[in-house]
């Protein structure tokens, strides 16, 4: 039988099981693009249930009183913006709505532009003033030393803010110089940075930590939540969507849920199809071997 050439240059037999096993990757790419685009154009509005860890994240901010200070560390770069920006924006909206004061920073050089953009957007929305309601400390090299040093003195760790203003002249920081005056540390992280906030700020300085992470990283975070070292966390875009529902302000997290659901479903369908073809193929090969042996 004349075979068809798949994307790996292998000549298939054209049988159903061979087609299932050797689907052209361009078909997969097109199907994924369609599965992501379709729900964005026509939303399915799938229900979003709130997980315990997202509720805990929400409640840690909700329990704070007006005027209290939170440290928000945005530990990611533009590559994970799509997943982490929604939770950052939701956290800032929640904090500003409650009139909390925000000390923002980043441990990633590439995170500076992201912090400026989101902090600007949220502060404009709630009419917050720089220096009294929020401050951006900027990027400091070496995250571990920065986290530890801030436990001793924030102003000595950051003698100036991101814009070159002396931190000892910034009104918000007049009463704030270490974790002792910070009610909560929130880190939105693309890497294992949340673990280090737990170790350095949590373990050494007894600071309460909440975190938002990419879905991949969230799997590694569970043990810290179970032991209480993390007071709450958001896992991936779904965590962001859950949090947006809790603060009653839908955003990119909720909008992305339908697309993510469809993409995951499609990937599972491809996996099942590939395995079905593989199992049929293996059975036929066994039968052929047994048949050959009999002959």
């Amino acid at each position: 039988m004349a075979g068809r050439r798949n994307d790996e240059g292998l000549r298939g037999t054209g049988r159903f099981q061979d087609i299932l096993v050797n689907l052209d990757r361009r078909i997969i790419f097109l199907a994924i693009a369609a599965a992501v685009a379709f729900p964005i154009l026509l939303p399915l509005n799938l229900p979003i249930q709130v997980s315990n860890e997202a509720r805990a994240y929400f409640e840690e901010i909700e329990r704070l009183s007006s005027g209290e200070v939170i440290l928000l560390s945005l530990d990611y770069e533009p590559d994970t913006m799509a997943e982490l920006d929604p939770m950052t924006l939701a956290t800032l909206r929640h904090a500003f709505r409650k009139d909390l004061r925000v000390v923002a920073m980043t441990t990633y050089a590439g995170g500076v532009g992201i912090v400026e953009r989101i902090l600007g957007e949220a502060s404009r929305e709630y009419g917050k003033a720089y220096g009294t309601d929020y401050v951006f400390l900027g990027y400091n090299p070496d995250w571990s030393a920065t986290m530890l040093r801030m436990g001793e003195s924030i102003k000595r760790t950051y003698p100036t803010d991101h814009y070159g203003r002396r931190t000892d002249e910034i009104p918000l920081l007049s009463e704030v110089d270490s974790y002792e005056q910070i009610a909560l540390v929130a880190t939105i992280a693309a890497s294992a940075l949340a673990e280090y906030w737990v170790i350095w700020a949590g373990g050494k300085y007894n600071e309460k930590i909440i975190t938002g992470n990419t879905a991949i990283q969230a799997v590694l975070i569970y043990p810290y939540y179970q032991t209480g070292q993390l007071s709450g966390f958001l896992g991936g875009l779904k965590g962001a969507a859950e949090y947006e529902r809790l603060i009653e302000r839908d955003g990119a997290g909720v909008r992305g849920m339908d697309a993510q659901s469809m993409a995951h479903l499609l990937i599972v369908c491809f996996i099942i199809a590939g395995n079905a073809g593989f199992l049929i193929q293996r059975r036929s090969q066994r039968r052929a071997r047994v048949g050959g042996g009999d002959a």
Partner: protein
Amino acid sequence: MKSTGPVILGFLVGMLMFIQYFTPDKWIEARYNNVLDWKQVVFGITLILGVVSLFLYHWRKIEKREAGWLYSIVTVAGLLLMIAGAIAFSPQRGPYTWLFDYVQSPMQSTMFALLAFYVASASYRAFRARSFHAALLLTAGVIVMLGRVPLGELIGFSAGEKTYSLATLSTWILDYPNMAAKRGIMIGVGLGITSTAIKIIVGIERTYLGKGA
């Protein structure tokens, strides 16, 4: 002396960082802060070293017209443009922020977004139930994949007041088998870090000094 000096220095700094955990002594606290300050300075210098090294590597490639030298031109041009933009107009406005917002951010986001397509293709090819263990991993993967999106909450059944869905099963997998495995790894890593730290402090582990130490 070439290796004894650094070993003694390593011992003293290591012991200082260890002891400061157990004492409120002001002198030790001040030295601890000094070490953290030095650490940040050293880290800053490594960044400069990295930029210089990246520049020289690509510059040599361009000079010798090695394979992919055209890409090296793009790298060097991007590097110089960002640095020049930040110095000439400040990192808060002008070409630096424009390049960050409209070149770097979309490029990095695009690279990450492409992963979705490659993950789909790779999982289709790699997730095969070739053995019992592979089938187990595959099943857990599929449950977590569906259970972590709203669709997974719709797939299930209710028994009395309780609802059992793929989301519930996914949470159970993450809370128990995943947690147990992760804890085991974390304890192992923790013990490994502790033993390596002790070996460095007492001078048994000297690979950080380079060859021949």
